[in-house]
């Protein structure tokens, strides 16, 4: 289950759906909007998705994780729209019998999702500038040249 959400993500409700007495381990990743990036104060973020392909590619990644690791269940949701500081941008949760598989799969999913799923992030800075992350070229905000991780 890979979803794009225009509403606040509710990890509690999502997590509840993964409850399963066959699972002994659950690893969840949350990506939060933080107040700075590479030293620049950030006021808010916008995420935009090419939704049909984002869901397809995200679902492929979840299925790859199921193929590579011994899992019970996987789920991921990515938020789109204008997000305030502290809001949840992306949530990935993986359950497995054993924790090693849950950790490895959760990390695989978020790493692949960040690299492959067509979702874009625009940062709004305190100085009024905005930048589409990873899309900088000459003339853009200097601080955005380097690829960044959450």
């Amino acid at each position, binding site marked *: 289950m890979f979803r794009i959400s225009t509403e606040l993500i509710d990890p509690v409700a999502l997590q509840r759906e993964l409850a399963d007495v066959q699972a002994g381990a659950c690893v969840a990743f949350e*990506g939060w909007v933080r107040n700075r990036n590479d030293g620049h104060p950030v006021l808010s973020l916008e*995420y*935009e*998705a*090419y939704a*049909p*392909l984002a869901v*397809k*590619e995200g679902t492929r990644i979840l299925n790859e994780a199921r193929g590579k690791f011994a899992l019970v269940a996987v789920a991921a949701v*990515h938020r789109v729209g204008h997000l305030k500081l502290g809001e949840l*941008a*992306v949530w990935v949760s993986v359950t497995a019998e054993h924790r090693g598989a849950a950790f490895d799969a959760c990390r695989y999913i*978020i790493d692949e*999702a*960040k*690299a*492959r*799923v*067509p*979702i*874009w*992030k*625009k940062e709004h800075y305190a100085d009024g500038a905005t930048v*589409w*992350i*990873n*899309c900088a*070229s*000459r*003339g*853009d905000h200097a601080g955005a040249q380097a690829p*960044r*991780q*959450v």
Partner: protein
Amino acid sequence: MIHLAVQYFAILREQRGLSEEKLATAATTPTALYDELRARHGFTLPADRVRAAVNDEFVAADAPLRDGDRIVFIPPVAGG
């Protein structure tokens, strides 16, 4: 000439000033079409930093374009 629909997201949407358009082109591959549009609209990203999707599936930069295709150019992604 083939007729295509083009969708724009993120930095390309802003630089183009719209989300979708229909056009006729002599370009036969995504790369050729992107270079044509980049020259016309001043997109800052070079073709080698943009992927393409046709009809909601990733395609190679030199995949053939067919009349009626819907194409999306995908700037470097940054989810999460």
